[in-house]
């Protein structure tokens, strides 16, 4: 069953990015307590106490006896740690959500699944045990909430799977997922690695909504004839044959020599800007 731990919290009035940032620098974590019958309450908890609770949590579910201090009075609330937000790089806890639950009312939550044993398909067939789902939806009283649901997978051969229907939930727990939903499956080993083909240059993806003028533009580029001025750049379809084709006579003449002043012949090429563009 999920461990029930005690945690002290204080109500807070500071909300918003700046004030909460200042709070964090004092060694507390902002959080919120909410439930079906109560108004959401902004709280702070000590970062070390919370870290200790989270470090000793086996599954994702931690039931806490939250002692919320408000104006010198302490109120006890039974809550489930619903979500913990971490900083993506520094990994520190940024915020914690407590979901208030009733000790006498059934609640719905998710419980992590854990495979027990090594599947036969992995041991002998070289397959891989795959998680189809990592958590199962359950309904139970808080006192019956399991840390994890352990599932024996030793009998699984390659291609076989364990479904929700074949599981025996712990006492007092009802599984809410459809019975046919697979939980674990043993997949065949990965196919032989296909080596990447010769390192071709960047190919060209299709441009959505672009008209294909391949034939017309391709011919123009191959002949080295300047395209009509003001014509939009043909782009991919056009650039490809132009790039691949040997430089045509006209194109070579149009390209200005390095450092040289543009030749007189370059003028029409300038008009045909897209065509004359040097690759």
């Amino acid at each position, binding site marked *: 069953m999920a461990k029930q731990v005690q945690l002290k919290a204080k109500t807070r009035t500071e909300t918003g990015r700046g004030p909460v940032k200042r709070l964090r620098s004092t060694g507390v974590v902002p959080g919120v307590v909410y439930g079906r019958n109560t108004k959401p309450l902004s709280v702070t908890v000590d970062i070390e106490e919370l870290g200790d609770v989270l470090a000793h949590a086996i599954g994702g579910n931690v039931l806490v006896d939250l002692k919320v201090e408000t104006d010198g009075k302490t109120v006890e609330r039974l809550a489930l740690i619903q979500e913990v937000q*971490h*900083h*993506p*790089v520094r990994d520190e806890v940024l915020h914690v959500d407590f979901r208030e639950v009733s000790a006498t009312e059934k609640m719905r939550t998710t419980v992590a699944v854990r495979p027990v044993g090594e599947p036969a398909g*992995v041991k002998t067939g*070289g397959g*891989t*045990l*795959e*998680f189809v789902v990592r958590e199962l939806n359950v309904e139970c009283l808080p006192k019956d909430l399991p840390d994890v649901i352990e599932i024996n997978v030793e009998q699984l051969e390659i291609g076989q799977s364990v479904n929700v229907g074949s599981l025996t939930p712990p006492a007092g727990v009802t599984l809410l997922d459809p019975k046919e939903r697979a939980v674990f499956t043993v*997949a065949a*080993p*990965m*196919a*032989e*690695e296909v*080596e*990447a*083909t010769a*390192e*071709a240059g*960047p*190919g*060209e*993806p*299709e*441009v*959505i*909504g672009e008209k294909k003028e391949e034939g017309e533009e391709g011919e123009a580029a191959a002949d080295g004839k300047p395209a009509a001025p003001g014509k939009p*750049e043909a*782009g*991919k379809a056009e*650039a490809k044959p132009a*790039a691949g084709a040997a430089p045509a006579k006209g194109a070579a003449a149009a390209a200005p020599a*390095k450092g040289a002043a543009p030749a007189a012949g370059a003028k029409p090429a300038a008009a045909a*800007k*897209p065509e004359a*563009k*040097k*690759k």
Partner: protein
Amino acid sequence: MPLMPMRVKHRKQQRGNRAGTAWRGASVSFGDYGLQALERDWITATQIEACRVTLSRHMKRRGKLWIRIFPDKPISGRPPETRMGKGKGNVEFWAAVVRPGNVMFEMGGVTEQLARESFRLAAAKLPIKTRFVKRK
């Protein structure tokens, strides 16, 4: 053939913004272990492919590999010894924008030791600092 989109709306893009931290795609979501970026950069399709080859060779057909970044950004460049102007250059390569925190590769169904070693080898193919992360 390197990774690239099959269809795009525009052939070329501006450089865009890669500031900030990755808030999405920053946790191990598919496998058990991951390789997380600690710096920001454009990771090219070639680099991703190099990592994939390294990882799958070291895994020796065991386990499963997920590549969580995709090079959907065309990066254009100017050919050498070309004067300025004459429009935007040609697309030279495709890249994925990676920010600190992005989990780029994930692995499942293998031991932690194998995953660590595989990611160590793959990280050598990347231009950024990375770290090994586990599912929380």
